[in-house]
């Protein structure tokens, strides 16, 4: 099963490589292929469409503000499930694409214990065993995987309504759908912050697909070591001396 998923991912990555390019300049490392970036931005588009249309029906105070964006309440109600479905489907592909990279490792438990130092910015460099994705990214990934399952099940129940699934199922789904949305709403701020101003140099990973070596040895030292064969700490010190 896993190998079938891998074969599909390999094929998809190869197919998408011809649709875009990933220029890796001197002093940079190749991080995300075109396929990953395409999925990421499709997920982002569907997420924000679903989020903003969801706001319209989330709170009475928001209804008149958010429904006109989608052409009125009726159209918003018709579109929201499709936005949500697109989000779940695109993220489903991304999940397959990233499954291997997102497997929890013993190093991640250590990373989570060290979270305070990361948040307070006491440690300038990530712990040396931080791989392609750090534990924080993995937590968010798995949260979205679980969230997508909740979205899909409760979303279909809300979509087809009490006629099909009964009053109680809709009433419960209504709450679970909200909780899933609230968690992702809180998460998206952190995600956008860390990928832009919070950790400068990150954004280009999802646009051009390449990151600077300095970025790599700072935030993902184990990955840097794996792709370059050099010690991240040493590389950093060398760069410091050259400055």
């Amino acid at each position: 099963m896993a190998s079938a998923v891998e074969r599909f991912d390999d094929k998809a990555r190869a197919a998408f490589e011809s649709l875009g390019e990933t220029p890796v300049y001197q002093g940079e490392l190749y991080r995300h292929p075109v396929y990953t970036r395409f999925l990421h931005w499709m997920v982002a588009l569907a997420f924000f469409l679903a989020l903003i249309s969801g706001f319209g029906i989330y709170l009475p105070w928001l209804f008149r503000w958010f429904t006109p964006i989608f052409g009125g309440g009726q159209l918003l109600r018709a579109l929201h499930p499709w936005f949500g479905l697109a989000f779940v489907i695109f993220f489903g592909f991304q999940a397959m694409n990233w499954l291997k990279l997102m497997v929890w490792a013993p190093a991640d438990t250590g990373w989570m214990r060290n979270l305070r130092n990361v948040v307070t910015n006491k440690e300038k460099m990530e712990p040396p065993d931080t791989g392609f994705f750090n534990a924080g990214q993995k937590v968010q990934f798995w949260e979205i995987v679980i969230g997508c399952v909740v979205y899909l099940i409760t979303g279909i129940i809300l979509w087809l309504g009490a006629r099909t699934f009964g009053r109680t199922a809709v009433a419960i789904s209504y709450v679970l759908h909200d909780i899933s949305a609230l968690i992702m709403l809180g998460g998206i701020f952190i995600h956008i912050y860390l990928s832009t101003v919070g950790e400068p140099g990150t954004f280009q990973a999802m646009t051009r697909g390449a990151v600077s070596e300095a970025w790599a040895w700072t935030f993902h030292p184990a990955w840097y070591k794996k792709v370059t064969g050099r010690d991240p700490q040493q590389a950093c010190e060398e760069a410091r001396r050259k400055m």
Partner: protein
Amino acid sequence: MADRKTFQVEMISAHPGPAPGRGMQRDLEVCKLVDTTTCIGCKACEVACVEWNDMPFSPTTFDNTYQTMPETRWNFWNLIKFNEHQKEDGTIQWLMRKDQCMHCADPGCLAACPADGAIVKYANGIVDFNQENCIGCEFCVSGCPFNIPRFNPSTKRVYKCTLCSDRVGQGLEPACIKSCPTGCLKFGTKEDMKFIAEERAKQLREKFGMEKAGVYDPQSVGGTHVIYVLHDATDPERYGGLPKNPQIPWSYTVWKWLFKPVLGTFALFGLLGVALHYVTAGPRRPQPEPRRKENSDGQRG
């Protein structure tokens, strides 16, 4: 749907703040009284309802009962439900109950509705759907303890009994009341109907040997503007779909009106959190951080 001008609006679905003009004028609460003990199941009210509301005819389903169809429909708001109840002594009691919107004082449909102005409750107690504002999400179906709102798949809107708000607004009684040949349906103020209902229940208890006779006006939804006199008020379930203790799911009460705004604001604190992080802890830059330099024009980087 009634002309808004004729009624004062008391509650509006998904409306931020109170209904405009609420409490400007005095208004009496209206009420429909259904005496199940004198209903003969003639279905005149069903016909009157379809006639008055100009509802299109649709084929019915025969399920070996006297009932016109199994449940009310988007174009059939008033249905006599026939139920056979076996009493303890083995005799059969044939129960007929006029099923329609109960026009609750605390309407579950209105609480559940996310669309501003799709459901209104007038000061006289009538709960009305404004289909032009309905977005067809069907949350009202889930919010209603009486299984009343009906979705029309072709218009993508929800419909139900209006308590003939158009007639009541013109000082007429609802069409079903007008058609009733036995007088088992009465219409008037809530106070009057409640009085008549209690008197009738007392009569049934004292003169007809129905010790359990009583009035159905469930307080769990704040009372209703359609009340029943029942042979046995201790067991309304036997009349088919009349819950003993109708409840609005807490998803549409506490969750929707308290937890949703509070938790929504809480989620926005994420924005505040990252802003504070930027200001206090500061961004994490790739190492080593470059020293500040001057360009050829002497500008500092």
